[in-house]
């Protein structure tokens, strides 16, 4: 059980980067961007193909990020310059990327296209970091500490989770900072009130394109890391990614609140982890199969959307009842009034 939870926390932190990307489009820009299903795979495909071709994993991951940025910009161009509906721009880019991703993975073989790339005996950012990390005495001591209060198997290294926490927190800090810069404020205002920000000399088209680019850069980054973590890239690994991203955003916001940007980005990261844990627990139910994954995801999102409303309604009803009671007591207390 501990290993399963530990694995889902690891995975959750990697997917949190994707969720932050979805947060930028859905919440900040108010743009329902479906490019994500494609750009996630683009990130994975570029990283896997380049690593297979012998490039350094760090370089491969960096190029993956740039590829995601370009994909997002394309969606933005379709929407702003082509005047195509936001949803449709994303869907068009998503299916276009499906073919492009097959081509990208095809660069590793004689054939023109390839549906998947296994990364079995190759280096990855995790193995690079791990080989340095395990030379430090920290790993052993953390594992010793874990084994003292966890029964059963413990993970072979905590290097991966340490690396992921560091990367994800760095990205969170960068996103927080960016959204407070002059450009970031303009992007937020673009999602909030386009007419207003235009009247303050901001070119909303450019900010939409930039926002979509940054969002999909994060999504592709996440895809590149997932490919290296799970040691394979597959053309269908992005199916439903947008729903997973939304699930993380919604769960996080519902539980941890949205008072400030700093708090909301943290909520999104925690939401991504919680989503993975809920999924891991659900999959341990005997009569559920791995194939039910998407159904479970859909149900989690539906619950995350409906539960807060129900809770708010109950809270409101309670508040009103209390008010009524107070009022009655007051009237009874002053019969002459």
């Amino acid at each position: 059980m501990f290993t399963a939870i530990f694995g889902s926390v690891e995975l959750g932190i990697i997917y949190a980067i994707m969720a932050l990307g979805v947060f930028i489009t859905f919440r900040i820009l108010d743009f329902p961007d479906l490019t994500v299903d494609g750009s996630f795979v683009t990130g994975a495909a570029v990283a896997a193909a380049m690593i297979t071709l012998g490039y350094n994993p760090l370089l491969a991951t960096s190029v993956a990020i740039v590829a995601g940025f370009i994909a997002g910009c394309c969606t933005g161009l379709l929407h702003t310059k082509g005047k195509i509906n936001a949803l449709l721009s994303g869907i068009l880019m998503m299916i276009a990327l499906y073919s492009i991703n097959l081509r990208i993975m095809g660069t590793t073989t004689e054939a023109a296209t390839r549906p998947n790339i296994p990364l079995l005996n190759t280096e990855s950012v995790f193995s690079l970091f791990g080989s340095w990390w395990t030379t430090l005495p920290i790993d052993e001591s953390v594992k010793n500490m874990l084994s003292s209060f966890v029964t059963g198997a413990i993970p072979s290294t905590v290097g991966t989770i340490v690396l992921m926490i560091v990367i994800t927190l760095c990205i969170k800090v960068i996103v927080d900072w960016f959204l407070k810069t002059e450009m970031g404020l303009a992007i937020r205002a673009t999602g909030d009130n386009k007419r207003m920000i235009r009247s303050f000399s901001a070119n909303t088209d450019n900010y939409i394109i930039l926002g979509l680019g940054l969002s999909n850069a994060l999504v592709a980054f996440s895809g590149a890391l997932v490919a290296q973590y799970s040691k394979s890239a597959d053309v269908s690994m992005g199916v439903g990614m947008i729903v997973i991203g939304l699930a993380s955003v919604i769960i996080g916001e519902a539980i941890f609140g949205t008072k400030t940007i700093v708090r909301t980005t943290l909520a999104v990261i925690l939401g991504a982890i919680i989503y993975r844990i809920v999924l891991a627990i659900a999959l341990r139910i005997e009569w559920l199969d791995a194939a039910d994954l998407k159904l479970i995801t859909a149900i989690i999102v539906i619950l995350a959307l409906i539960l807060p409303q129900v809770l708010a309604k109950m809270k409101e009803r309670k508040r009103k009842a209390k008010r009524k009671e107070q009022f009655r007591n007051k009237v009874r207390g002053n019969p002459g009034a």
Partner: protein
Amino acid sequence: MLKLTNINKVFNEGTPDEKVALGDINLHLAPGDFVTIIGSNGAGKSTMMNMISGALTPDFGTIHINGKNVTGDAEYKRARHIGRVFQDPMAGTAPSMTIEENLAIAYNRTKTRTLGFGVNKKKKDIYRTALEMLSLNLENRLNAKVGMLSGGERQALSLLMATFTQPSILLLDEHTAALDPSRAELITNITKQLVEKDSLTTLMVTHNMQQALDLGNRLIMMDKGQIILEVGEAEKANLTIPDLMAAFEKIRGEKMNSDRALLG
């Protein structure tokens, strides 16, 4: 400062709904001019404002701001020199952002936006000082989301934001029409104060004739896409509402449809 030359615009050309929105408008504002515009619905007042701001482009004719031809410039490009307040108090601010963030956006109007912080200690002081002028206690609520403010407060903030960087032209499009009388008066006073402070060149559309007479140094009356009456500084001081009604009747040979104009 602002010069409109032979501005023409037709909507729905070639259909039964064809409407001449602006028929050969010529208007020239000297620096510091404060012109109030009155006219019934459909007179072309808002169309003219949208022409100046760049939300609409004329069929032909030219618009000069500070001697530069801006007729073909996009709205966001011209916005560097044009401050604008809309009728809807919700339109001029970003509701989910804080007061200081909204002011930061206004502060950046004339600059290229960078990766520097929009709000820092030094800028906060500038924002606070500016807000104090409104006497609405907003300077102590810098971190409140603008969506939480009342319509009057939001309109006051919009006005401050529009004038923050001393734009070459200030456009006020019935900016007190959606408020109750006491709030409208407050906004009118703030308008007077802010415009006088930097002697801003201002165009204000209003349905309220009294407001049109009280504010500004010039007045124009529009009807059916044309400027039918121009009143200069000397005449305007002694003008009354009945004078305006009589002038309209004389020019148009019909009674002004004036319920809204009188009461608005």
